[in-house]
């Protein structure tokens, strides 16, 4: 038996956008065990809720993550609305859906680019991010922010999209639809992509379930776990089916995300076609009293915002469980038995967002 050595991986590493540290126990080139440690970017945002008006905390909830920011604000607002029994107008629900899907598009395109970059496929990275730029432009035009939208508020949304603008947006999506297809085609068929990701980072369906995998990690392992099925915002009235791949490897997780691009475009079109006229917000009176677990599907998976309030304007406790922290145990499992050279690709395949994971 070869001697074991421990190689530290991270917190600073070219493939990691955010700091996570892994102690890799190696036997020759094979990883025997991986011990994760996080905690470099803990900001204590959950504690801040005790000092903020519950309506103002939306802006902070949104800043938990820079990529799934919009879905964080939806999750938080949904929790408060459920506690206070607020009837959010239909139009606001549809707008939330549209922006959620836009942020999914932008997050997945970002991830696909980073993934290509981790494999050393620079051209593909540029291509993915070029398409992402048009999505960000649409976001900035309608919400005012590129990545932090700041458009969701308790009781509705802060800005409306005119019908003319919606038409323009769907037309734009039609035109970049072809580009997205070309991009996905590369991920589906290209020999170098397949070479780096097929059969790498295996996570069986049983393990995924046992270790609590969420989002594309679960979907790539054959579990149809998508909280949009619960029908929050306007998802209940839109037609969609969670995308499931059964390859259980990095390639499947990549395919899930690539296919979700087309699905998001389709959902936006459906929502834009069916959006009802009406108000975009409802007046909020009083303070929340009660507790609720609000669950939303982020680009990275299921996110939970637990809010407990006692009728004062400050909330007692908010607990956020982000998809990245749920996906760390599956990551440890995936790394067992892989080759050292595959570690960056595997780490990236869960789309780690450590800022999220620690809050």
């Amino acid at each position: 038996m070869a001697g074991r050595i421990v190689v530290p991986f991270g917190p600073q590493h070219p493939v990691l956008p955010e700091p996570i540290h892994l102690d890799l126990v190696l036997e020759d080139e094979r990883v025997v065990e991986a011990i994760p440690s996080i905690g470099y970017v803990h900001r204590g945002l959950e504690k801040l809720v005790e000092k903020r008006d519950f309506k103002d905390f939306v802006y902070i909830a949104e800043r938990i993550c820079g990529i799934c920011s919009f879905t964080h604000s939806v999750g938080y607002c949904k929790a408060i609305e459920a506690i206070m029994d607020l009837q959010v107008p239909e139009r606001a629900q549809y707008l939330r859906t549209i922006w959620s899907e836009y942020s999914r598009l932008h997050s997945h395109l970002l991830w696909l680019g980073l993934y290509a970059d981790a494999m050393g496929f620079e051209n593909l990275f540029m291509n993915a991010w070029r398409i992402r730029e048009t999505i960000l432009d649409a976001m900035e035009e309608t919400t005012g922010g590129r990545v932090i939208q700041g458009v969701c508020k308790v009781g509705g949304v802060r800005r409306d999209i005119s019908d003319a603008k919606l038409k323009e947006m769907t037309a734009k999506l039609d035109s970049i639809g072809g580009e997205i297809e070309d991009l996905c085609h590369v991920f589906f068929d290209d020999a170098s992509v397949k070479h780096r990701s097929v059969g790498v980072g295996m996570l069986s369906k049983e393990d995924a379930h046992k270790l609590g995998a969420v989002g594309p990690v679960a979907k790539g392992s054959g579990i149809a776990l998508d909280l949009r099925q619960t029908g929050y915002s306007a998802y209940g009235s839109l037609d969609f089916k969670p995308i499931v791949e059964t390859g259980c490897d990095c390639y499947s997780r990549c395919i899930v995300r690539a296919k979700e691009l087309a699905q998001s475009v389709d959902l936006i079109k459906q929502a834009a076609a069916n959006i009802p006229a009406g108000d975009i917000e409802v007046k909020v009176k009083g303070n929340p009293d009660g507790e609720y677990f609000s669950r939303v599907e982020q680009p990275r998976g299921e996110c939970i915002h637990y809010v407990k309030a006692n009728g004062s304007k400050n909330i007692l406790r908010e607990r956020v469980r982000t998809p990245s922290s749920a996906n760390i145990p599956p990551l440890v499992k995936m790394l067992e038995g892989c080759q050292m050279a595959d570690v960056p690709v595997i780490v990236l395949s869960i789309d780690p967002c450590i800022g999220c994971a620690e809050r």
Partner: protein
Amino acid sequence: MHKEEQTITEVGVDNLVSEVSKMYDEGYRLVQIGCGKYDDIFEINYSFDKDCKFVNLRLKITEGVVVPSITGVYLCAFIYENEIHDLFGVSIKDIAIDFKGNLIRTSVKNPFNTPTVTKVKAAKPAKSENAAAAGAKPDVKSDAKPDTKPDAEKKKEEA
């Protein structure tokens, strides 16, 4: 309004692991473990999900009670249990992968277990002093910075 049905069942320290094992046998997935401190009582919620059905077990304990780990049933609980230990100081015994308080590196030990800091600005002394100085004396803004910086650094050293 879309509102999920969410059941919460209270459990005790003795029957926690057996209740969790029951959930495991029924095919539930561990969604999260979250803690909160209300007055002197720690409330730990264990959330489970099966086909989008959401159920919770709730454990209420006081300071000093040792909670058994559920990593024997759900291995993935280690990340949440370590987090609770680091942020609240709740002691949890027999965690499969125990970081011993080093998962989340905070400058203050158990930050979520400390009494609420009412003044937000007091938390960042160097900067807020700067801002206060600049705000109070708008004419000497440029001078304010070099003046206050050494003071703030001294204070840090003292602390």
